[in-house]
C-alpha cells in the first residue's frame, strides 16, 4: 500500500505493531478512513461508477419500497388492461393484459432478485477464492485434487445442469436458488485465481514472509488476498451478472419453479400471451427487460470503477502526493460470459 504522509510511510512496513499503539477510537477512525471514506471518494470521483451507484441505489430503493409496503401489491384487474406507460400517472409503467400494474410487479420481486443475485455472487466468488488460493499456494497433491475436481465441474455446461437440478430440488428460496444457479460457476473462476496466485506466490515479499515463519493462512489473508481483491471484485460482479441472466432466462423459458411473479416470469407471460404480436403489448415485454438490463448495467459500471478503488497508485494520486504516476490502464478482466 502506498503512502499518504511521511509519518505513515514510516510505520507502513510494520503497521501491525504500530496499530496496536493506537487508541481504539483512533483505530476506528483509521479503519473508517481507509475502508469507507477513501474508497467512497475514489469511487465517486469516477463518472461511470457514480452512475452505477445511482442506478443500484434505485434498485435498493425499490426493494425498500416493497419491504415497507409503500406501493400497491400486484393483483389482476387492479387497473385497465394494457395501459401504455405514462397513459395514466397512477400506473406509470402501464399494465399487463390482465390489468396488473407493471411497476407493482417489478417492485414486488426486487428484494427476491437482489437477494438471489447477492447469494449467487457471494457463493461463486467465495468458493472460487478459497479453492483458487489454497490450490495455487499449496501446490502438490492438494492442487492436483482440487484442479481435477474443478476440471470436472468446468466440463458441465451450467444451464442444462441447473435445469436438471431445479427439477430435483425445486428451489424457490432466493438464496438457495442463487447457489443452484452458480453451482459450477466457481470452477472456472477458481482456476483463473489459481493461476494468479501461482505468479503472486513467487513474489519476493511472499518469500520473505515465508522465511520469517509466518503461517500459511496468515500469508494468504494478509499478503495474497489483497493483491487479488480487484480481480475478485470484478468477478463478483460478473458472477452476479451471470446469476441474473441465468435466472431470468430460465424463468423466461419456464423451467424454474415459482410462486408469484418476478421479472423473468413477467417476461415469459408477456412473450407467451401476445406480447410478441402487437405493438400495443410491447411495453409489457419492455418493462422487465429494462429492469434486468438496468440492474446489470449498474453492477458493471460500479465494477469498472472498483478497479481504481483497489489500485494504490490511484489512491496516492488522490492525496496529491505523486504526480508522476501514469494514467492507469483499464484492466478489464476475464473472457467469461
Amino acid at each position: 500500500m502506498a503512502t499518504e504522509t511521511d509519518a505513515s510511510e514510516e510505520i507502513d512496513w510494520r503497521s501491525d505493531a504500530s496499530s496496536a499503539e493506537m487508541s481504539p477510537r483512533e483505530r476506528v477512525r483509521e479503519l473508517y478512513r481507509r475502508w469507507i471514506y477513501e474508497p467512497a471518494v475514489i469511487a465517486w470521483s469516477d463518472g461511470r461508477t457514480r452512475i452505477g451507484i445511482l442506478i443500484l441505489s434505485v434498485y435498493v430503493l425499490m426493494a425498500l419500497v416493497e419491504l415497507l409496503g409503500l406501493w400497491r401489491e400486484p393483483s389482476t384487474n387492479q387497473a385497465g388492461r394494457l395501459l401504455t406507460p405514462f397513459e395514466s400517472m397512477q400506473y406509470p409503467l402501464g399494465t399487463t393484459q390482465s390489468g396488473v400494474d407493471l411497476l407493482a410487479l417489478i417492485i414486488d420481486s426486487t428484494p427476491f432478485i437482489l437477494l438471489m443475485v447477492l447469494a449467487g455472487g457471494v457463493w461463486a466468488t467465495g468458493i472460487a477464492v478459497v479453492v483458487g488460493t489454497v490450490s495455487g499456494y499449496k501446490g502438490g497433491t492438494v492442487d492436483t485434487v482440487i484442479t481435477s475436481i474443478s476440471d470436472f465441474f468446468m466440463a458441465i455446461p451450467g444451464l442444462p445442469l441447473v435445469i436438471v437440478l431445479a427439477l430435483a430440488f425445486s428451489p424457490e428460496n432466493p438464496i438457495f436458488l442463487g447457489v443452484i444457479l452458480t453451482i459450477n460457476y466457481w470452477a472456472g473462476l477458481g482456476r483463473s485465481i489459481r493461476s494468479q496466485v501461482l505468479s503472486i506466490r513467487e513474489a519476493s515479499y511472499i518469500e520473505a514472509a515465508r522465511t520469517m515463519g509466518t503461517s500459511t493462512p496468515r500469508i494468504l489473508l494478509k499478503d495474497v488476498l489483497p493483491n487479488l481483491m480487484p480481480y475478485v471484485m470484478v468477478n463478483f460482479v460478473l458472477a452476479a451478472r451471470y446469476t441474473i441472466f441465468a435466472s431470468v432466462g430460465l424463468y423466461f423459458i419456464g423451467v424454474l419453479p415459482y410462486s408469484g411473479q418476478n421479472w423473468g416470469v413477467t417476461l415469459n407471460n408477456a412473450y407467451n400471451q401476445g406480447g410478441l404480436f402487437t405493438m400495443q403489448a410491447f411495453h409489457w415485454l419492455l418493462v422487465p427487460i429494462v429492469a434486468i438490463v438496468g440492474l446489470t448495467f449498474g453492477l458493471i459500471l460500479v465494477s469498472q470503477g472498483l478497479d481504481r478503488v483497489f489500485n494504490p497508485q490511484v489512491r496516492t494520486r488522490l492525496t496529491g502526493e505523486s504526480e508522476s504516476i501514469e494514467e492507469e490502464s483499464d484492466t478489464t478482466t476475464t473472457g467469461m460470459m
Partner: protein
Amino acid sequence: MNYYLRRTIRIPITVLAVVTLTFGLIRLLPGGPFTQLRVQLLQQGVPAEQVDARIEALQNIRPDAPLWQQYLDYLVGVLQLDLGESISLGTPVIEVIARALPWTVFLVVTSTVLMFVIGVLLGAIQAYWEGSTFDTVFSGGSIFLMAVPYYIFAVIGLFFLAYQFRLFPTGNAVARTVETGFTLEYFINVLHHAALPIIAFTIGGIGSTALNMRGNSIQVLGEEYVEVARLRGLADSRIATRYVAQNAILPMYTGLLLLIGFRLGGTVVLEEIFSYPGLGYYLIEAVNANDYPLMMGCFLVITVTLVVAVYIADLTYGLIDPRISAGDSDGY
C-alpha cells in the same frame, strides 16, 4: 508426459465422471427413476414384471436390481449408444439427439467464431486509437452490450424482424417444403432460419470480448518488447499481428474454454425462443413432458460435446502458445 497425450487420456475419464453424474441425477430426480410411471402402469392393471420390463426398455435401468447393477447396466448402455427411449416422442433417444446435435453445434460454432473475430477486431482498433471518440463510444457500447443478456436480443429481434416485419422465419431450422440435400436452396434456407439466433448469440458476446481485447492490447502496447520492435524498424503490420495481437489474444484463448461451456449451455434458452430443433430445445421439451430418458440423454450429449469442444480448443492452443507443446501447461 507429452501434453497432447495427457490431454487425450483425460477425455474418457471426464466422460466417465459425467456419465456417473447423469446416473446420479436420474436417481435424484423427483420420485426416483420412473416411480410415477411405474405406479401409473400398475394402476392400469399391467402386471409388475411387464412394468419393469417396459421401464428397462425406456432407460436401460432395471428398477429391481441393486444399485451397482443398475449403474453398470447404464454404463454399458451408454457405451453402446443406447440412451433409452423417449417417452413423449416414442423413438430411441439417440435418434432424436443425432438429428438435433448438428444444429446446436452449427449455432454455437458459427456464433462463437463470429463473436470472437468481431470482438477481437473491435477491441484491437479501440486499443490502437485509445482515447479517441471511436474508442469512447465503443467502450460505452461494449459495457452496455455486456449488460444485455443474449436472449433479450433474441426476443427483440424476433419481435421486430420476424413478427412485425416478417423478414425472418419465427422458428424451426429449415422450412418443411425444402428438401434436405446439398442444394443451394437448402443452404440458403438453413442460413435464413439460423440468421436471427446466430446474430442474437453473437451480439450478446461481442461486448465482453471487445473490452477484453482492448484491455489486453493496451497492456501489450506498453510492453518494452513492442518498443524494441519499433526501434528495430519492423513493419507496422508485423508488429500489429505478431507482437501485439498474438500476445493480447493469448490470455483470451484460455477463457475460450469457459466461454464454449457457457455458450453451449446458453443454447437451451436460445433454441427454445426460436423453436430451433437443437439439443437445448429437446432438453426443454423433455423437461416439460417429464420425459426423463430424453432429458438425461440431451444433458449427457451436451456435456460430452463440451468436453470434445474444449479438447479441440486445447489442441489448437499449442499453435499460438509454443510453451504448451514444450510441456509447460502450468502457465494457465
